[in-house]
């Protein structure tokens, strides 16, 4: 298929889109695809061109041609299509559509040319008769010949020139002059002859331009007047009755010119309005088409998202089921091997070694299965941290001491640099120990013998920065981006030896995220890597924030029923904490929500359409609807229509509730609204 390169790019695009549609539909067939018609409205003519895609062989008629607007697909023909380029011109009447190949001249123009020919022939006849058709002076014969030739040359002139009022006006003036000169020179001048010119002027009036008509009339009148004076002499001319005719003809021509001019304007106005209506209609059709496509796209996307979510859920369920299935045989193996242990003395040296290898690998397998389960829990959003005020040593030291021997075996230096006087942090020490152990074991794995690993903890403006720096093989920039994704392994997994499940960093990332901060990496290939995160200090505020984050996480990740608990504690009720104004508090909430959202759960928050969001508010003066809308607007980039229920303080029990109780309370509170027609039973999963 060829689309002319000089056409508008937008048009090319629409045509190639139509082709893509064709191909997408496979066997679907088309009568003809008609591209949008770009229309050029000139001074007094309209030019349109369009393209049609027709079935090859030209069998199908373009019966379903859509003149303007979007491309319409029919349903017949075969797979091959030709592009047929079509143009049409509308003349100044705005009504004649002439396909290319037909006459270039309108009826009016042809009449004009014919009458001009008559004029030339008549003048020529008079001159030729004067010389009795024999002794014609060559100059006069030449002028006659040029006049005839000029009429023929009209066929070669481009149409815009031919129809332009200026051209017509100058033509009338030129004709008047040369015919007058010719007649005067040949001595055949007769005032009656000039009536002919008025016919020509009237013909020109079909050009429907008042100015041209008046101009022509005046020029012809002056020429007439002068010629009469030249040929008759002053006294005779003034006495001649022909002079009286001049103003009369002038007025008649002017009036006629005015009339046709008015008619032309009205017609043009009507044509322009018609064109505008057509354009509006085509725009409307285009909009409808765009709308239809968008709706379809939204529906498709929703479906894909649902499928993705289902797939992701299935994966989580699958991983967790498989891991449990692994555990049962592993238990039998482990127990059996453990039962062998008391008899280890009775075994030979190598058998004892084999037994050790077996036990070590059972432990390793159990560890991997544990990782798999952990990640499936994280993906299901069921990670949970128990926050306390702790020192950074409380999680760094056990991790370091458990891994020290391994580092020594690998010939690495392990250094711990913890600043003095670090504040307490608000964190889960067991979880962070897990993170540190993971980062350290990675560092050991990827650092060659003789390298150095530094565990650091230092004060920053935001809190306490924990870091693990190594002099290992480092990461490429692409790897640095993906390293925290589950199951991701840096480098080529086939050539590099397997280094675990690829889950450790994903788990660590999620745990750190659960603390309201981000695990980051800066790395240089072959130089080493630095993993770091910044913990918040154990102030009252951070404690509030972690409570809030816990609630948000539940809200975001709970599979079938979303709600967000936002509580602004009152100074008055003795529990202290957030002294901020409601709006400041609101900002903080939204900020926290952004910071907390776990990446792996993006797919869950992005499907809000049929989900109910419930907010339970303890404090007063907070607009729950606003929180949700703002949060969703920020998370989704739109202002979605999500049903929002806000529950007041009375539904909420004292501290010590479980998540299930919370949900129960929320569900009871919005039971009145149950007739909601989305048909989703929140307990149905």
């Amino acid at each position, binding site marked *: 298929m060829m689309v002319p390169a000089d056409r508008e790019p937008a048009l090319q695009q629409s045509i190639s889109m139509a082709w893509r549609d064709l191909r997408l539909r496979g066997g679907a067939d088309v009568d003809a695809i008609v591209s949008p018609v770009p229309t050029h409205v000139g001074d007094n003519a309209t030019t349109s061109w369009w393209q049609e895609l027709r079935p090859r062989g030209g069998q199908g008629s373009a019966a379903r041609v859509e003149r303007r607007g979007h491309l319409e697909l029919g349903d017949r023909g075969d797979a091959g299509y030709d592009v047929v380029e079509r143009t049409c011109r509308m003349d100044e009447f705005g009504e004649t559509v002439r396909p290319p190949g037909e006459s270039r001249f309108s009826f009016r123009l042809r009449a004009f040319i014919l009458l001009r020919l008559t004029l030339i022939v008549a003048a020529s006849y008079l001159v030729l008769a004067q010389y009795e058709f024999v002794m014609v002076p060559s100059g006069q014969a030449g002028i006659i010949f040029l006049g005839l030739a000029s009429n023929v040359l009209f066929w070669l002139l481009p149409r815009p020139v031919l129809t332009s009022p200026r051209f017509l006006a100058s033509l009338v003036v030129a004709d008047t002059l040369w015919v007058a000169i010719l007649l005067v020179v040949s001595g055949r001048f007769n005032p009656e002859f000039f009536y002919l010119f008025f016919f020509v002027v009237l013909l020109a009036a079909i050009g429907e331009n008042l100015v041209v008509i008046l101009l022509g009339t005046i020029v012809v009148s002056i020429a007439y007047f002068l010629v009469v004076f030249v040929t008759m002499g002053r006294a005779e001319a003034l006495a001649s009755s022909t002079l009286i005719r001049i103003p009369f003809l002038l007025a008649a021509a002017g009036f006629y010119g005015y009339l046709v001019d008015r008619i032309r304007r009205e017609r043009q106005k009507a044509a322009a309005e018609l064109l505008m209506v057509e354009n509006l209609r085509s725009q409307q059709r285009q909009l409808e088409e765009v709308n239809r496509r968008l709706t379809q796209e939204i529906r498709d996307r929703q479906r894909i998202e649902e499928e993705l979510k289902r797939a992701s859920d299935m994966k989580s369920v699958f991983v967790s089921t498989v891991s*449990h299935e692994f*555990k*049962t*045989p*592993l*238990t*039998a193996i*482990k*127990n*059996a091997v*453990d*039962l062998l242990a008391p008899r280890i003395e009775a075994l030979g040296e190598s058998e004892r070694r084999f037994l050790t290898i077996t036990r070590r690998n*059972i432990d390793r397998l*159990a560890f991997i299965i*544990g990782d798999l*389960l*952990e990640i499936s*829990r994280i993906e299901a959003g*069921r*990670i*949970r941290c128990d926050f306390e005020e702790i020192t950074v040593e409380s999680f760094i030291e056990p991790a370091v001491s458990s891994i020290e021997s391994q580092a020594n075996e690998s010939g690495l230096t392990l250094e711990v640099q913890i600043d003095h006087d670090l504040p307490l942090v608000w964190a889960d020490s067991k979880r962070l120990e897990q993170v540190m152990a993971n980062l350290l074991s990675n560092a050991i794995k990827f650092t060659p013998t003789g390298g150095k690993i530094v565990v650091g903890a230092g004060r920053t403006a935001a809190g306490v920065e924990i870091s693990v720096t190594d002099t290992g093989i480092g990461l490429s920039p692409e790897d640095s981006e993906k390293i925290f994704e589950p199951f991701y392994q840096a480098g080529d997994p086939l050539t590099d030896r397997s280094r675990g499940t690829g889950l450790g960093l994903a788990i660590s990332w999620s745990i750190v995220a659960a603390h309201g901060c981000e695990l980051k990496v800066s790395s240089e290939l072959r130089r080493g890597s630095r993993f770091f995160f910044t913990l918040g200090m154990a102030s009252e505020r951070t404690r509030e924030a972690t409570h809030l984050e816990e609630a948000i996480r539940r809200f975001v990740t709970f599979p079938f029923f979303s709600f967000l608990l936002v509580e602004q504690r009152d100074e008055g009720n003795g529990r202290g904490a957030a002294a901020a104004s409601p709006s400041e508090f609101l900002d903080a909430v939204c900020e926290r929500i952004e910071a907390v959202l776990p990446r792996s759960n993006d797919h869950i928050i992005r499907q809000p359409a049929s989900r109910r969001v419930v907010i339970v508010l303890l404090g007063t003066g907070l607009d729950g609807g606003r929180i949700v809308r703002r949060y969703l607007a920020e998370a989704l980039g739109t202002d979605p229509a999500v049903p929002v229920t806000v529950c007041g303080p009375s539904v909420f029990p004292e501290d010590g509730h*479980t*998540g*299930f109780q919370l949900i129960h309370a929320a569900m009871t509170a919005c039971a009145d609204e149950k007739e909601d027609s989305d048909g989703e039973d929140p307990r149905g999963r």
Partner: protein
Amino acid sequence: MAKILVVDDEADVLETVRYKLEQEGYEVQTATDGFQALGMVRAQQPDILVLDVMLPGENGYRVAHYIREDESAGVYPRRMPIVLLTARDLSAEPEREKMFMEFSGADHVIYKPFELDELVSWIGRNLSST
């Protein structure tokens, strides 16, 4: 000699546990599904119950739950210590763990894969206390 009922549908696991407990000097009976376990508890009234959770028939949580119901109805003379064995490790989700434990009324849960010594020491502690 204390009587222990071990319930697990996995013959291999059952065999290793039975071997270990017999070595420790207990009298071990076994069952391989929930209904059988309930029947044996009623008939034999063991001193202690080691109960797998994922069983054919009634699952372990429900078996334990029924036994506790019977106990509160006065069917058995004394409260039987029950330890659950399960591969579904809920230690990272304390809320759910608590909920299941409360429902079943079991005294303890050991997650598979486990150390046989851990089971033995728990049994030792709970037998001496009864």
